[in-house]
């Protein structure tokens, strides 16, 4: 499994755009990049998944450069309710390894302030 590195924490203010970058230098050809969000005492929630270039959904955008060694999750105009831990995972579709199991790191704790 490709190891991922992301900042431990980030602070932002309401209304700002937040970009969280994840490094995955050893990403394999078949790997996808998936981001999950976790609120306290809740299970992780799938946000977005991509393979290359840019993916956008109603929640976020995911930017992946041509070499795929990093990716950036972009949250437009965050609100207080976006305060959560964000996990970057690399693996087969679903975000896991050869068996499809998700391996979570420590994630990035995003704090959104008023």
């Amino acid at each position, binding site marked *: 499994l490709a190891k991922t590195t992301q900042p431990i924490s980030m602070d932002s203010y309401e209304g700002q755009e937040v970009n969280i970058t994840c490094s995955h230098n050893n990403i394999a050809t078949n790997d996808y990049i*998936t981001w999950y969000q*976790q609120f306290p*005492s*809740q*299970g*992780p*929630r*799938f946000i977005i*998944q991509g393979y290359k270039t840019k993916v956008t959904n109603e929640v976020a955008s995911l930017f992946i450069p041509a070499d795929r060694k990093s990716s950036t999750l972009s949250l437009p105009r965050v609100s207080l309710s976006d305060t959560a831990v964000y*996990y970057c995972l690399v693996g*087969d*579709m*679903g*975000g*896991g390894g050869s*068996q*499809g*199991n*998700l*391996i*979570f*790191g*420590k*994630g990035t704790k995003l704090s959104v302030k008023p």
Partner: protein
Amino acid sequence: EPEVTQTPSHQVTQMGQEVILRCVPISNHLYFYWYRQILGQKVEFLVSFYNNEISEKSEIFDDQFSVERPDGSNFTLKIRSTKLEDSAMYFCASSDRGLGYTFGSGTRLTVV
């Protein structure tokens, strides 16, 4: 939006007792998982289940743990003889391998 349902939301048990955590995965998903998260720590993989058998398990999933899909809708995790260090949030998840995993809200297990 389809959900993964877990019961109970909280469970307190005495050390050495058996507990069964229950999950109802999304109906058309084929892959099922249990994860746990000790307070303040990472989400850890326990076991994956497909086609009525365990696909993979982690070091945490020792002989005290077992999983079962007793019927077409439920997926259970049994801890045979609980220890204090089993206290954690236990999350069930399901997937169809193509669209990401859906996690339940978890069961908070407290072993006293």
